[in-house]
């Protein structure tokens, strides 16, 4: 006997989500339609609700107190600078995730080590009188400082991979993560004990002292900010070329695709992984020095929060995706700089905003802005 689908059946099908429920002939009011749509697309409607709430808040704040346009421009530039630094760190997360499918939890600390190395080099160069002598020697000292930061970060990253990650490559996924957490705290408190708890203040080299004023608008760009932004863009382009055009980059992509087949094709997987860590750590080291120049201070824990935020940026752009990390970082930098003022909150809440973005992205778009859908194995 073929009976029309009874209500019980429909409910079961709805619950299982196998197919759309059979349309009913009952006349539904439009309110009823909306409510049933909301029930079906709970996550989407929640997202819409949050967006509406945010827009409402922004509009109402904008009506109450209007900051001058210069303020917004200043914050935007600040955000772009910060975004540039985040991008350098986020690329390290993304590169490692792309290959090992693990979050290198200690990456922020690798960056911090680079920042310390840069700081001590700067101290030495200031002592030798390079930083303030002529513009040329000042520029050279910046380059030396960056190189020192990158070298120390690369060393830290490679040792980290060798000791804490390589023996665990075949282990269940929680195991390397816990090891990474351990390594992160190990490095952080090593820096605390080795270099002391006092904040170390970066004294800017003479070429960084000063600002550009753009015409009559009153918009100000500091030399440091411009340097950070431009250098990070150049480095990102460099990385992109390495990954896309060189032989090592090709092997990296092959290993990311499938380790076993890459081995069969004659690729030394260990070497490629080390190379990935070198690339990521070098960028992080440069990022650490830049962050030091930007914040003018470095401490044992100054890698932790930026590390988390860079991770957020990587997730926002789509983890494992190199252009995604860049876009996500710039976006996050801007949101963090403009967010508190736009939402009418004190600036202390900028970290809260960044973490909220992470949570929201993971709920509403786990693949990020540019990410592809990962299979279960990778996700």
């Amino acid at each position: 006997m073929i009976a029309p689908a009874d209500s019980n059946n429909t409910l079961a099908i709805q619950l299982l989500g196998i197919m759309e429920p059979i349309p009913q002939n009952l006349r539904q009011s439009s309110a009823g339609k909306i409510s049933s749509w909301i029930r079906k697309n709970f996550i989407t409607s929640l997202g819409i609700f949050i967006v509406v709430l945010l827009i409402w808040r922004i509009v109402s704040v904008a009506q109450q107190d209007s900051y001058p346009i210069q303020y917004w421009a200043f914050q935007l530039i600040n955000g772009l600078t910060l975004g540039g630094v985040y991008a350098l760190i986020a690329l390290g997360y993304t590169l490692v995730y792309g290959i090992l499918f693990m979050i290198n939890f200690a990456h922020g600390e690798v960056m911090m080590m680079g920042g310390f190395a840069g700081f001590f080099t700067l101290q030495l160069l200031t002592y030798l009188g390079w930083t303030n002598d002529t513009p040329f020697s000042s520029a050279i000292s910046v380059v030396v400082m960056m190189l020192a930061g990158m070298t120390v970060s690369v060393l830290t990253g490679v040792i980290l991979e060798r000791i804490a990650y390589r023996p665990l490559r075949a282990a269940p996924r929680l195991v390397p993560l816990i090891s990474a957490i351990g390594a992160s705290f190990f490095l952080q408190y090593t820096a605390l004990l080795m270099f002391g708890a006092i904040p170390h203040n970066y004294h800017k080299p003479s070429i960084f002292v000063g600002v550009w004023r753009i015409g009559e608008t009153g918009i100000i760009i500091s030399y440091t900010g411009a340097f950070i932004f431009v250098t990070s863009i150049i480095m990102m382009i460099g990385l992109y070329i390495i990954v896309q055009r060189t032989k090592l980059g090709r092997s990296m992509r092959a290993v990311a695709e499938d380790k076993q087949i890459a081995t069969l094709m004659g690729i030394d997987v260990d070497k490629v992984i080390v190379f990935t860590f070198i690339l990521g750590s070098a960028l992080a080291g440069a990022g650490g020095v830049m962050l030091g120049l930007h914040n003018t201070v470095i401490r044992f824990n100054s890698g932790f929060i930026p590390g988390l935020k860079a991770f957020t940026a990587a997730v926002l752009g789509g983890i494992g995706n190199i252009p995604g990390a860049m876009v996500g970082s710039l976006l996050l930098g801007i949101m963090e700089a403009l967010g508190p003022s736009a939402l009418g909150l004190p600036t202390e809440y900028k970290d809260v905003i960044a973490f909220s973005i992470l949570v929201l992205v993971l709920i509403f778009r786990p693949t990020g802005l540019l990410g592809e859908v990962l299979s279960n194995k990778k996700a």
Partner: protein
Amino acid sequence: MNNLKEGFRYGLISYGIILYLNLLGIPLNFGDIVLTIFSLLIGLLSFAFLRKRPNHLRKNLRNTLVQGLIIGLVSGLGLSIVTYIFASLQKDGINVAQVFAQVKPEHTGALTGLTKEEVLGDVSVLPGLLQLTLLFTFAGFIGSALTQLPVEKLRKQFDSKSGLKTISRALFVLPFFFYGLFMLLKVEGVQIAGTEENNLGMLFIFLFIGAALFALRAVEPGRQKSILVILLVVLMLLLPHFADLKQNAILGVVGIFIVMGIGLNIVVGYAGLLDLGYVAFFAVGAYAYALLSSPESYVVLNLPGFEGVNFWAGLPIAIIIGAFAGFLLGVPVLRMRGDYLAIVTLGFGEIARLLVLNLRDYTGGPGGVINIPAPILFGMDLGNPRDILYIAMAFGLIVTFFTVRLRDSRLGRAWIAMREDEDVAQAMGINLVAIKLLAFASGAAIAGMAGALYATRQVNIFPDNFALDVSINVLSLIIIGGIGSLEGVVLGAIVLIGLPEILRTVDEYRIVAFGALLVTMMIVRPEGILPSTRRKRTLHVHEDSESTSTK
């Protein structure tokens, strides 16, 4: 030739480790015994490196001894060169401590047997460095010689069940023996690594508890075990009466961490959800009780006629609010797994702290909440460390009871199934959403309970009490103790929370050591010291299948 190269490589690694410890300030903090510590370490490293080589190489006596000598020599010379450079810089009046904060003249002095003035003055450091090099070389040599002992046999004996039993029985008796000896002789001024004499008693208490845990593990279930359990419970109940004020205070902290560890064990150990923001719930519980009870809190000041609740009324509220917070934070992370979950919960933990810090009007901001009342029962003030310890013990027992019942229930089995494989669990008809939320909520409820107890113990609480370190401490203690096992939580709390409290010199190195321990543990023994049987089997089965599949 190859030999020398290998020895040289090991030597460089040992040198790296020694140099690291040196820059970390071990000489400065440990003073004169630093040379002994370093020599022991070199011996140990030399032993460890040389023992794991293939048999035919290890049996070659001359080869081994030469390598041991090289290991010691390389580390000794390396450290001497670095120390010499630092010493010359210090003599020139350059403050090395601006870069390496711990390298002060006293630091150099401790390594070379000189005083601070001698280091800065005209006395040469070279004789001291020569002595150091010779000592290290000797230590490396001894370490290599020890590899010739039949260690394998001993190890096999330890690994077999009967061996474990013998050793744990011995361990069980030893602390009593030492404690008795200690009491009998009344040794005054005995110090081990910065302990004071009453701390030595504490050390024996810890040893006793640790030994008891191993003994519990070794004894077969049955009458023997029940007798042991009863004996231990009675001893534990008597313990606070024998311990002095300070010892009780330390044990109280350990107790609070044990309660938290049991709670986190539900989330991480049973359900397999790596939660790094556990401190958030601890903070919620503490602040819930503090705000409802302290006469100076926002709630009590602003609710007319509300005088604040007492501990026994505040406790259930703290638990319920904690559970609700767990539920609330569980909802957004339902779809996340492993790594993502860890990072997001970490973010939540930070958000909680930032909120507490910045919502000045309600939580008091950095000024915290002060004058939190002590628990009162039948008119007795239970705020002193001994009674707090009793409360902590009671909480521990209650929580253990609930956890064991939960673990063996349908829900507990569902958690374990989910931990092993979410997809398969779901296919078996387990409602992942419900059990995940229940795991978060029950873990958070226990954290809320611990938080309320912590608040009343501390009297004043501040946002800094709820930093990320707490999450990391709790996570480390359950992982190192043995994930998923209750004895493991107790052992972990004693080793990671209790020991650093009494070994004050070690305390500075607590988190560095945790980090190193976590990494080492993951490599050497991912199931922890006292693992649950199921967990151990899972991890080892996994290893076996991995190794066979790659072959």
